[in-house]
Structures are given as structure tokens and as C-alpha cells.
């Protein structure tokens, strides 16, 4: 298995983490999230994002408010819940740990 074939599952697992980070940084609606991720290796599409956000909401990590927009219908603006923030903190801590392990093992 070539290395880049192993990236797929890694990205897949990290996408939720990244979305928590994006939502934590700012109040965003789906198009904002897509735009922020578009230039990264985590570029994603509505077809993936809507179902994922829906599940994250069911898990109690995020919630949304309806907000009127200047153009078009009202939009769902997402924000982290308390448990979402707690999980993000856990994830960030764990990510640092992994990074540190990788660095320490050298190469």
C-alpha cells in the first residue's frame, strides 16, 4: 500500500476534528466551512458535510441558530456546545501528544 493510500483514512478520521476547530474559531454556516477547508487537504463538499454536521448535532457537539441573510433564505449558523468545546480540547491535547510522540521517536 502506497503512503498516499493511507492518507485517506487519516483525513477521514480527522475531518470531524477540523470542523470542530473551524466552528470554534467563528460562527459559521456551511458555505463558510467549505470555503475554509477548500484550500486545505481537507477540501470537502456539501454532500459530505450536511450529513456529518447533522450527526455531530445529534451527538450534542454543535448546535445551530437560524439567521436571516442579506441574499436568499435564512441560514443555519453553527456554534459549539459545551460538550463540543470539551471534546475539541481533548482532541487538541491528544493531537499534541501524537505530534510529540512522532517528534520524539526521531527519524
Amino acid at each position: 500500500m502506497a503512503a498516499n493510500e493511507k492518507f485517506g483514512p487519516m483525513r477521514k478520521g480527522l475531518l470531524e476534528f477540523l470542523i470542530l476547530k473551524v466552528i470554534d474559531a467563528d460562527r459559521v454556516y456551511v458555505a463558510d466551512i467549505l470555503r475554509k477547508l477548500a484550500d486545505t487537504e481537507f477540501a470537502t463538499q456539501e454532500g459530505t458535510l450536511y450529513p456529518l454536521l447533522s450527526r455531530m448535532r445529534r451527538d450534542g457537539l454543535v448546535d445551530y441558530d437560524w439567521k436571516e441573510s442579506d441574499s436568499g433564505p435564512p441560514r443555519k449558523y453553527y456554534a459549539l456546545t459545551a460538550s463540543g468545546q470539551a471534546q475539541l480540547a481533548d482532541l487538541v491535547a491528544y493531537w499534541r501528544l501524537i505530534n510529540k510522540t512522532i517528534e520524539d521517536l526521531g527519524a
Partner: protein
Amino acid sequence: MRAVNTISLNGNAWQIESEGCEELAAYLKSAEVRLAGDPDREEILADLEQAIADKLARHVSAHKNVVSAEEIALALKEMGPVEAGSAAAEPGAPTGAATPEETPRAQAGPGPNGNPGVRHLFQIREGAMLSGVCNGLAAYFGIDVTLVRVIFVVFAVLTGGIGAAVYLIMMIVVPVAVTAEQMAAAHGKPFNAEELIGRPPAAYASGRHWRQQWRDQHRMWRHQRREWRRQRRAWHAFGGATAGPPPPPPYGGPAGGILHVLLLIAFLVALVHAAAGRPVFGWDWAADVPHWVGIVAVCVIYGTLAQQIRVARYYGQVGVYHPGHALVALMGTVVWLLVLVCVGWYVVHHWPEVQDFLQRALQALQTAFDDKQGGTVRT
């Protein structure tokens, strides 16, 4: 001109070209299937519809209120395939999210109608020459449509019109594939959402490509005919207006037309005789050569002669303006006819040798064919 349907996306009406509509419906249908079991399915579907609507809004304005099929395809490509986001859908797996490039379309299980389809014979109008009978047969047997058409034409010629009658009967008897489900059955493909998503653009593209070629060809023919008519008119006007010496009459003209018709009649008579194995113009060939050689020979001779007359007539008209071209064409035609006459003379006077050659050629063909068959059986 393209047909337009009006549909509702998350409570707002949109006017969309029919082909785009089908594609959109297939996408939403597939989303519904993928999200089966998701407690928030209705909400996600509404979100998806709204997201599509937002993308389509970029393409409409006060002066353009219809969304084209291409714009739909673009919007759906941007949307990406719908992935079930629920961890419950894939127990034990990490989150169901994926970046677009590693989203295998076939990953989701078969849809509700996912049983690999039983094939049915339908007429397929998309990309059809006449009624889509050959198209349907090709789909049914899973072979190239051109091959089916060639077989059909050869069959029709050899059976003297019975093939054409068969086509007519099939045209009336065989149902036409209208719905996507029937289309799937015609190809024997399972009718599920993943299949559907892939199919409409592909079928549309190939159909359009084929139609485009057909239209180009027609446009070329029309243009050519118009050019000829213009030249003929110009020549008449020129002839009528001048009091000076009249231009030389084109050596094609009406005489060429009569010659062509006579040749066609002779050809048809010869063909009927050859097909029936009767002597052609007093020559009892049937005793000496195989049946099919006679038919092929008659067709080849007619084709060659008719081509010469066509060329002669065309340059006969052009010749008024370009005497040089006409002269070259005339020389070409004369040389061709001379060659034909020589070949004919040789065949008649050296018949045994020709017969011998034909037989040896046939034998060589037979041997080659047998070898090939033997090879296939052995492997």
C-alpha cells in the same frame, strides 16, 4: 429548443431543462437512499436541496430564468456524492465523512431495486437512426450498435426486404424505453441510485456527440446542394441575359441525369436477376461463379459507374466556370471507364483464368478462416 420542467427545491420553484431535471432527481433519490436510517434524513435532504438551489441561483437572472442541464451537472459535481454521516450506519468505522477524492461511488450498498436486472428488449430512442430497434438490440445483447445495424442491413439486402419488414414489425411490437427504469432494464443494469447518477450524463454526452455528427453531416450536404443550385441558376441567368455566343452546354446536365436513371434501372434489374440466380443480360454466370459473387459484382459495377456519372455531372456544371477542372475530371472519367472496359473485356475473354483465380482466392480465405477457428478452439 429544449424541454423545460418546473420543480420545487426546498419550497421554491425552479425551471430546469428536462435532462437536467432527471439528473437532479437521480441525485436526490440517491441521497435519500444513502441517508436511509438517518433520524434527521428529512432535514438533511432539505439542506441539500437548499444548497443546490443556492448554486443554481448563480446561473439565473432577470434575462435567463431557465437552468440548463450543464449547469445542473456542474452544481451536482460541486455538491459531491452524499455520504451517510451517521456512525451507526457503519458500526466500528470512523466517522462516515470522506474527502471527495476517496469517495467510491459504489461503496454504499445496493438500493432498494438493487437486484442485478433482468434484461428486456426495448427500443431506445436516444441516439437512434430510425426508431431505436437496433439500439435496443445492441443494448440487449451488449454489443456495438454499428455492428447490429450492419448485420440488419446485410440481412435486409440478402433477404430482399424481409429484413426491412422485420424492422417495421419490431418497431410496432417492441416497447419503447421511456422511464429510467426501463432504460436500466434494456441494458440489464440494476436500477439503483448509484447507477442512475452515473448514467444520465454519460448517455446524454454520447447521444449528443452522435447527434452532433449527424447534424454536421447534414449541414454539409445541404450546403453542397445549395451551392450546386446556385451555380445552376447563375448559369441560366447568364445564358438568358447575354446575346453573345451561348456558353457551352454542360456535358452532364439533363443527359447525365437520364443516364444515371437508366443505369439505376439496369442495376436494379441485374440485381434482381443476380439474387435469383438467373442469367444477367444474357450471360449465364450462375453456372460458373458462386451466388454471392454475382451480387457483389453487380453492386460494385453499379457503384463505380454511378460514381463516374456523379463526378461528370458535378464538373459539368462547374466546368462552365472552370474549364480546366472539367477537363481534368473528364479525363479521369474517361480513363476510369477505359479501365473498366478493359477489365470487363479481360474477364469475358479469359474466363477460365478468372474463374481459377476466384476459386483459389476463396480457398485461401477458407483456409485462413479455418485456421483461425482451430486456433480459438485449441486455446
